[in-house]
């Protein structure tokens, strides 16, 4: 009987802990939004972070996008050809990328590369008292350190997503047309018939923006609230990657259900 009670208490505490965390993150988001005026007055702060967060993630996104496209092309062709529909490979690759794989994979890659870097950087600044120093110099760390990184993430990820999708489609093209002999004209026209700009591409971009807000928020929050020791920072970095992955996948399910129901 006692263990059942302990079990219930444990679950209850886990749930309340998660709710408290959710509340804290929402409050943090609101603080960031309120402190974002400095980002408008000093755009260089944001531009600098877009370089570190976005530009330096280009390599992994470009390479992954291309390879995902190549592999998708190969796999899809194999299955489609069994029904004599090999020509439709372009359509399948494009839809899969633009609707799902682009937003989700680019968000996951982004959180592991850029998200963890941001968490580590902010955590270390906290551990070496740099954030305290800023406060004592009458400068709000949220405005000067956190908000620019948050906005840079929100700007960078959707851009990375479209680059990922474009490269994926190109990879699919390389495999299907150059390697497997699908006719180029058929490849593109089948794709164009099936992919709708507003329904597919724009919805994919909207998903990506929502993921960008989530992933950037998690990264800066974990860094800011990290325990100020080496171990604390390392734990926070791991949490950023894991929590981002879970949140992205859960949000993806919810958004897909809303956006892509039979129409």
């Amino acid at each position: 009987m006692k263990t059942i009670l302990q079990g219930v208490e444990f679950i209850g505490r886990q749930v309340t802990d998660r709710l408290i965390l959710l509340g804290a993150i929402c409050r943090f988001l609101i603080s960031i939004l309120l402190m974002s005026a400095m980002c408008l007055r000093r755009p260089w702060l944001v531009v600098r972070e877009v370089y570190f967060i976005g530009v330096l993630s280009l390599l992994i996104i470009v390479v992954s996008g291309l390879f995902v496209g190549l592999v998708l092309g190969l796999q899809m062709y194999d299955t489609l050809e069994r029904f004599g529909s090999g020509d439709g490979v372009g359509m399948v690759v494009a839809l899969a990328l633009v609707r799902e794989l682009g937003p989700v994979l680019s968000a996951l890659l982004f959180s592991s590369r850029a998200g963890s870097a941001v968490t580590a950087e902010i955590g270390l600044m906290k551990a070496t008292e740099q954030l305290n120093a800023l406060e004592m110099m009458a400068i709000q760390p949220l405005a000067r350190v956190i908000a620019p990184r948050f906005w840079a993430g929100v700007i960078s990820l959707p851009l990375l997503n479209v680059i990922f999708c474009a490269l994926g489609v190109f990879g699919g093209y390389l495999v299907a047309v150059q390697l497997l002999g699908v006719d180029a004209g058929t490849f593109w026209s089948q794709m164009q018939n099936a992919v709708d700009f507003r329904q597919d591409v724009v919805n994919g971009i909207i998903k990506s923006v929502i993921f960008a807000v989530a992933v950037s928020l998690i990264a800066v929050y974990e860094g800011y609230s990290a325990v100020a020791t080496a171990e604390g920072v390392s734990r926070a970095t791991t949490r950023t990657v894991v929590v981002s992955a879970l949140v992205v996948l859960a949000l993806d399910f919810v958004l897909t259900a809303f956006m892509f129901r039979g129409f």
Partner: protein
Amino acid sequence: MNRTLVDLWVGFFVALGMAAVVFLALKVANQSSFRAAPSYEVHAYFTNIGGLKMRSPVKSAGVVVGRVTDIQLDTSNYQAKVSMALDNRYEFSVDSSASIITSGLLGEQYVGLDVGAEEDMLKAGDTIEFTSSALLLEKLIGEFGLNKATSTSAEETNHE
């Protein structure tokens, strides 16, 4: 770390992103949702629309001339009222007929418009008089079965 270099890279990144969007818009997706070509709306009643959906194409002679914009059940006659936006460039006579056609055997359904002989043309808000509804596979099979049964019993009667 040089400001100019950073600005250059960030500019390149954003330009690359925009190029990707343009690529996706033009090469990958179809253009129909943006061509906000001026159009006029007509209506048609069908006893059964089958699998016709919103934004299904309206074709004449195989060419897309418009899109389905609304599907409602009209409770005065319990028929489906389908509203379509037709491209201003194409005019159809008032005795044109609309039918719901399936592309291929099991493909998507669309509205096929066959032009009539009258001189007067359909205007915005007009209703197409001549319609024929979607062929439902189950009904076809049912009819086939019934025909088969009738002809078999007819043959048997003949043989007697």
